[in-house]
């Protein structure tokens, strides 16, 4: 059953997506102010996979929907409007595109179908205690031993590592080389001996990320993507996908809709001061979506992602934060409570959304780092002489 979604009329396409989402998405996945765990998202994920809809952006030949940019945006938009929470997507949004571009034929054939079917859940082993913004300072090492690599070191802030089946790891393969030059990109099963995970509780009270300890972890030689010591190219390409993912209007759109629901239910649209503020935020999101579409369009027509993609990440994350702050303001005393509260009949969790929007300016390259990139690589401003 091969439908050519791109040939469909947009209205019909949207109706088809909307119908499926409203009919099939479990209520527990709707309007959640936190990252979903696998056990919560599983039913929904498997339904998406069965329908062939788990990887809307991937080419059809790799098990994706092969949507063009307009359809992709419409697809995501229907999910957002229904309030569908983000499911575990690191394999789909980050590793998948990387393998499609840099993976060997065997790697593509092995991993992509498993990712699309949610058989494998990936986590991202980049950051280390001493290597956050300065990722290239990473110290985890990989040494060659016969037909294996032996990995030693520690990762941190690894999102949902406690439920992942696999991890991709940046590790140093040439300790002599210049910072970026001696790094390689590895794939490992989480059940490999030597890997231990310790969950870390967030400010919001959820165990959302982890420390991952790598102690003499032996992985097969072929579990490397790209060339030995060629990992930095991969790391950067993946960060580009990550920035595109986090620069998508999704999070901002979701919280804007919650703000709107709260405001409608409590009659705030009668207040011109509120309307002015809401309009400003709405246009912030609308223009983000338009800018996102421009980038995505460029990608489809074969341009590679330039440093300008930082625009999306900054504007998307900061707009979402402005919106959740407006939610907190509107919630007044109720903004201090944990969990959803009643706002004139609308059930909304302003504090949860506020927390959830905080790390958007930290992960995937902080807002400060993105601004540094734009200042140097795009605007061409000189480096500080201090």
């Amino acid at each position, binding site marked *: 059953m091969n439908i050519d979604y791109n040939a469909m009329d947009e209205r019909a396409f949207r109706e088809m997506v909307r119908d499926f989402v409203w009919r099939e998405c479990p209520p527990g996945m709707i309007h959640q102010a936190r990252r979903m765990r696998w056990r919560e998202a599983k039913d929904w994920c498997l339904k998406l996979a069965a329908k062939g809809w788990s990887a809307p952006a991937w080419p059809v030949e790799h098990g994706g929907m092969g949507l063009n940019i307009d359809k992709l945006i419409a697809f995501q938009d229907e999910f957002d409007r229904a309030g569908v929470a983000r499911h575990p997507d690191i394999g789909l949004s980050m590793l998948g595109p990387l393998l499609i571009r840099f993976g060997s034929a065997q790697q593509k054939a092995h991993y992509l179908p498993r990712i699309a079917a949610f058989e494998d859940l990936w986590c991202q082993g980049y*950051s280390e205690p*001493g290597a*956050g*913004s*300065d990722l290239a*300072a990473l110290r985890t090492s990989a040494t060659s031993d016969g037909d294996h690599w032996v990995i030693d070191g520690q990762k*941190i*802030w690894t999102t949902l590592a406690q439920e992942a089946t696999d991890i991709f790891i940046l590790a140093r393969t040439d300790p002599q080389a210049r910072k970026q030059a001696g790094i390689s990109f590895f794939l490992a099963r989480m059940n490999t001996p030597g890997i231990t995970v310790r969950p*870390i*509780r*967030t*400010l919001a*009270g959820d165990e959302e*990320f982890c420390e991952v300890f790598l102690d003499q972890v032996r992985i097969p030689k072929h579990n490397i993507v790209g060339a030995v010591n060629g990992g930095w190219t991969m790391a950067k390409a993946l960060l580009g996908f990550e920035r595109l993912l986090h620069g998508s209007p999704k999070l901002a759109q979701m919280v804007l809709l919650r703000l709107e629901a709260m405001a409608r239910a409590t009659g705030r649209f009668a207040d011109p001061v509120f309307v002015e503020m809401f309009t400003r935020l709405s246009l912030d999101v609308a223009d983000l979506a338009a800018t996102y579409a421009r980038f995505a369009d460029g990608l489809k027509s074969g341009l590679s992602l330039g440093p300008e993609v930082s625009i999306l990440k900054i504007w998307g994350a900061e707009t979402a*934060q402005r919106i959740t*702050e407006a939610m*907190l*303001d509107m*919630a*007044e*005393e*109720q*903004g*201090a*409570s*944990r*969990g959803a*509260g009643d706002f004139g009949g609308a059930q909304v969790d302003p*504090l949860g959304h*506020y927390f959830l929007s*905080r*790390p958007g*300016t*930290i*992960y995937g390259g*902080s*807002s*400060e780092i993105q*601004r*540094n990139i734009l200042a140097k690589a795009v605007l061409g401003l000189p480096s*500080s002489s*201090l």
Partner: protein
Amino acid sequence: MFTSIAEPEHRRQLRDSAADFLRRRCDAKAVRAAIETVDGFSRERWKAMADLGWTALLLPEKAGGLGLGFGDVAALHHEVGKAAAPEPLAVVSLLVAQAVARGCEGALREPVLNRLASGDVIATLAWQAAPGALGSDRVGPHAVRSGSSWRLAGRALFAPFAARADGLVVAARVASGVALFWLDGAPPVLEDRRLADGSTQASLSFDGVHLGTDALIAGPESGADILDGVLDTARLAASAELLGLAERAFAMTMEHLKTRRQFGAPIGSFQALQHRAVDHYIRIELARSALERAARVMDCGAAAAERGAEVSAAKARCGDTARDVARDCIQMHGAIGYTAECDLSLYVNRILVLSTWLGAARAHRDRWAALRLRSGEAA
């Protein structure tokens, strides 16, 4: 840092002894342990605070209190904020005990004040009709006199610690104003909610509650004034705690900026972070000024409108400042700032609660405008 006008000696001593107690009894580990209990605070530490006289700062000396002023209240709560202490000090000693002390002349007065001051009971205040309500014009519960009793009805929102309390003062609308009553025992909790900082807050329903005439603390001739007075006093304390919380969160962040290294340098050497830090330093100094001004005005015995405007100015400034500081301190910490393990989280969560308690910034700016602008007087 430039300092404020020198504090009087007794206040400096109060601060020092408070800081010393909190250092010993209320470090981050102790706070963490307390907020994870059902109560959300430590009853043991609460008792120790009472023994130090903290529950009786404003009570007259002949009622066993310390007979101190609002500047002293602000100083104490400033220290309490720096430690992120979760105990219901402002609730019991300022909302409840002050309502009883200012209103009650009858037989209830001595025993209730003694129990409150001793730290033997936790009590709360119920009054609020709706979110954003700031005073006696928006009281939720109501009461009618029938024979030798009062019949209460209606609801009150956001009563702190109500589900953990052993008594409460309830403000109710009566025929000719607002009256205050003392209600012994567990409050009639409708819904109890856990807040960001581990404390709790409940909505209450007074439908079907009957009280004897001896439960009356203050009748309609003084009830509204007393209610507005204690609310403003507690707001002064909350503003002081917010200032303390913001200062400590900021200090922790400055420490992090000096020690955390990336790209071969302390992250505090990056100008983007330096400028952000300086902006918050400025905001904190403004908040300190607003707080000191409000305390001074209250100590001069200002009339209700003058007091209300100054307290609202301080609460708006301290609330917004603390929330902005909290937000950017998370950012400047990086991922570690988003964890519960980092002590910063204790400060952020408490700021998120106190900045809304007894009115968030916008409600207080509206009140300021109503008191200062709409009455035609220039700011």
